[in-house]
């Protein structure tokens, strides 16, 4: 085990896969000379040169398409969106091309590409830069969508993403980049479609991913002091989704709260709730509640923003509700 920050884990995954496979390259805005808008690619230009660490003109639709073309040739592009918010201008390339070229060509073409970057709220970046874009992309067959919460998973899942033969959307978080954690040494690869128990418990299941896993762990600690023992599931992989881990945990706790960033209408949380009610209906002792971003565009004002983003106190209140500790 080696302790490192999330940012370093992402960087190490990129570097190791670039060493391992000469087809892998990194492309995006500010990834080379500037060393990455969030310093994820720091040092990579010096190590791999400008032919593999590539600064682009400022146009997500452009370099998403360039990456798809390169992937069709047989290279393994890693396309960095400075933030996932900006992927909106490349949506057609992701929705109509990356996701569908294999299917539309009858299997003649494939797009082994990784799109990655920070997702979700940051701090005071306003309504247009605080989106949780996973809710748009998980809808699309042909895409795989992952959102690791820890440095270990960031490294292991990014390595899996780069080796995958299909397009993978890899969602990081600006607020996670400095989080430290132990990462196994060697060629550590975490396969998709498997969740992780971040904390064991018996009274209520908290289901989350990415940054909100840490918020759920914080809530679970506070709830433990109140005598409520929460299990925290880190989904890690949003598409494919691990149903088994959900059913197993609900069969033990009989109650669940899904906590994530993103608006309450539809989305990953609604999908999780649907799976649980279909697969473990008889195990449930209470309706499942969701703790989400409030249903408004993100305000800039720091105080307002903190009310809109889901916080530990809202998770605690939801758990108390499903365990009938409060009305």
């Amino acid at each position, binding site marked *: 085990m080696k302790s490192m920050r999330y940012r370093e884990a992402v960087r190490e995954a990129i570097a190791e896969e670039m060493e391992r496979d000469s087809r892998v390259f990194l492309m995006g805005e500010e990834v080379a000379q500037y060393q990455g808008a969030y310093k994820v690619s720091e040092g990579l230009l010096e190590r791999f040169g400008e032919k593999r660490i590539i600064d682009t003109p400022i146009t997500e639709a452009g370099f998403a*398409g360039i990456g798809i073309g390169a992937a069709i040739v047989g290279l393994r592009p890693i396309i960095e969106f400075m933030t996932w918010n900006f992927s909106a201008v490349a949506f057609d390339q992701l929705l109509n091309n990356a996701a569908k070229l294999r299917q539309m060509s009858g299997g003649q073409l494939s797009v082994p590409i990784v799109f990655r970057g920070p997702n979700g709220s940051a701090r005071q970046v306003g309504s247009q830069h605080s989106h949780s874009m996973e809710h748009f992309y998980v809808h699309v067959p042909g895409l795989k969508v992952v959102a690791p919460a820890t440095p270990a998973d960031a490294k292991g899942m990014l390595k899996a993403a780069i080796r995958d033969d299909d397009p993978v959307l890899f969602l990081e978080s600006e607020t996670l980049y400095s989080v430290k954690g132990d990462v196994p040494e060697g060629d550590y690869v975490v396969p998709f479609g498997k969740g992780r128990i971040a904390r064991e418990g018996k009274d209520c299941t908290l289901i989350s991913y990415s940054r909100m896993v840490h918020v759920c762990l914080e809530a679970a600690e506070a709830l433990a002091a109140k005598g409520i023992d929460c299990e925290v599931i880190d989904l890690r992989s949003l598409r494919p989704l691990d149903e088994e881990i959900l059913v197993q945990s609900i069969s033990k706790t009989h109650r669940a709260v899904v906590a994530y960033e993103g608006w309450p209408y539809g989305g990953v949380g609604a999908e999780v709730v649907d799976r649980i009610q279909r697969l473990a209906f008889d195990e449930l002792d209470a309706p499942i509640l969701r703790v989400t971003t409030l249903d408004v565009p993100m305000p800039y004002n720091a105080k307002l923003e903190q009310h809109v983003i889901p916080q530990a106190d809202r998770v605690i209140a939801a758990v108390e509700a499903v365990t009938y500790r409060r009305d």
Partner: protein
Amino acid sequence: MTTATIEEGATGTARREPDDALAADVVRVLAPDGTLVDNDAGVGDDEAVALYRAMVRTRLIDERAVMLQRQGRIGFHIGSLGEEATVIGTVHAMRESDWMFPCYREFGGALYRGMPLQRYFDNLYGNANDPAKGRQMPDHWTYRQAKVGSVSSPIGTQITQGVGFAWAARMRKDPLVAMVYFGDGATSSNEFHNGLNFAGVFKTPNVFVCRNNGWAISVPTERQTASATFAVKGIAYGIPGVRCDGNDIFAVVKTAREAVLRASRGEGPTLIEALTYRMSGHSTSDDASRYRPEEQMSAWTTLDPIHRLRRYLEARVGWTEGQQAAFEAEVAGELKLVIETAEKVTLPALETMFDDVYATLPWHLQEQRAELLAGPRAKGH
């Protein structure tokens, strides 16, 4: 390289007129009357006959596909009526190693590159032998074996992809050129500007073929751009823009060959504006008479790319009415056979629609497939 002349006024200067091709900057080799402009076709006699046959074959296929759609036997067709010289001439200039990133009017080019006619009709019918396995609209084929990329309905997405492809191929030291096709309308898309900008910056081995056929469905070129020509748009990206008479097969071959050679020498991309004309509606879903008066068409008919090459061949190699009839009969026979075959082939099996969504079939799609195959769904679903 052309020079831009920006004229006064809000409306554009790019209005397509029958005498546009006479402008000084336009590459011309074969005049509408079938005579050579400079005594040099640049193309041998056998080669010219082969090009002619490909163009006639393309038109006959086109006409048949329209008829099949009118008869309700296929759902849709989008063709290249009047644009055959641009499509066949550019593809003729490609080398075997080169790739084609089509728009959606280049079926003749895909066939010329080696996509079998049977596979093309299998795509029109969306049957089990369709290379796209019945998943795509008619005329949205992919044929990797002939180095032909995928046809995308959203406008222009192939432009950046074609640039990325060429750029990555060069990184891999594959000595290929990617020829990217689009219409005049696509020059308004993000992807045109993105693609050309990247191509200029990365100096990619690309040839951009803008088929200026005068129309984007019902929008005429002068409502598409205020630039004097489409070729001048290359200037802003540091890419030479060349205009050629797109109804003059020899001019198209000459221009495209130079561009392919230039790209293959590592000298970067070229934007070709081929001045041609869409003689049909946008597709079988369109009725051009609603926005284009029929009387406008006669001037364009005299510029027909097939007629002028035929006149040339009649004078040059003595192409006869008999040879013409025999060739048309040969294509008719070929069409009869492939259509009969395509109509006999079954639909793609239900279970195949779960394939190719991912490289390997995920469990949830295996479940959906099993559920579908098990018959009627349970009550309440």
